[in-house]
């Protein structure tokens, strides 16, 4: 027997590109929930590395953390977030030290925070949706 949600469509946060999500996972909401949950866990861990690398003026560490966070936003349809991470990664490659990119770092910190909140919220709603 099909689950109750099979004929319903989940409404994602408006910042998540739902067409993109469906192009990756079709309407497999159970799997989408898994992806969101797994991405959120990794995001929490990597955003810690992101902050600590900046605070210790480790430009290479900052680049690595950015590189790892970037596809997490891709896998969860937060394409603007993904693009901004890509731009910041490029900045890290050309900047000689972290003090040159403080403004962009602050902006990105806010964006990561927003991304985490969106994922947390949609993850909870998805879990309810499929239960």
């Amino acid at each position: 027997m099909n689950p109750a949600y099979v004929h319903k469509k989940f409404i994602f946060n408006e910042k998540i590109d739902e067409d993109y999500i469906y192009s990756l996972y079709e309407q497999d909401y159970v799997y989408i929930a898994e992806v969101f949950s797994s991405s959120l866990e990794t995001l929490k861990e990597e955003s810690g590395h992101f902050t600590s690398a900046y605070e210790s003026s480790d430009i290479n560490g900052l680049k690595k953390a950015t590189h790892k966070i970037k596809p997490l936003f891709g896998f969860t349809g937060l394409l603007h977030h993904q693009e901004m991470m890509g731009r910041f990664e490029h900045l890290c490659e050309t900047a000689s030290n972290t003090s040159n990119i403080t403004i962009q770092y602050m902006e990105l910190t806010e964006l990561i925070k927003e991304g985490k909140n969106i994922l947390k919220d949609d993850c909870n709603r998805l879990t309810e949706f499929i239960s």
Partner: protein
Amino acid sequence: MKMSCVIIEDLKVAADYLARCCEKSGKIEMMGHFPDVKSALEYLNSHTVDLLFLDVEMPGATGFELLDNIAYKPKVILTTSKEEYAYNAFEYNVEDFLKKPFTYKRFIEALDKVTAENEISSTPDKSNSGNHIFIKSDGKLIRLNNDDILFIESMGDYVKFVTRDKKYVTYNSIKNLEEKVNKDYFMKVHRSYIINLLKIDDIRENDLFINGIEIPISKNLRADVLKRLTIL
């Protein structure tokens, strides 16, 4: 036949997605997932696989460093979120380059490229009566004249074509080749060897020698081998 593959990827969500695509395709036998180059090399140095799904930037060493250090040449599909690596991908002669995240359709396109190449490499000649074969090795189709081949040796899922000057490793099996090589020249003498009959130097008990190399003859094939020789 399914292709054996491993995933070398440090991002869990990406590795899981890739494993899901592999399973859905029905064409892949997943041998394992490794989150870094060191653990992958440990495995790959003692196991032969057909295909690697390889990330580039990982903790410790990069995917390109793995390719520099692996003892053989499996097919490779690079998976990375950075388009700048496309040039390196070309230089390393990888089969395809998947930018993360990628759709299942794009994954299948990449897999089809590998499958198509495997089909070519599994077809050494269009008939078994020619005087040469083509094999796929090092990303090229290489012509080998029957006269130049000393013997063919099994290496698990691969075979080694041995000539006087060089050795060529390609994805194939002795069983498959036995049907396709020119039987005027070649004969299977052991489950792991097909030899060029014209290159035998001498035979002693259950071994034969070609260019100083000892090759075993299966007991059940020994009489057939002797029948093929002109013994005065």
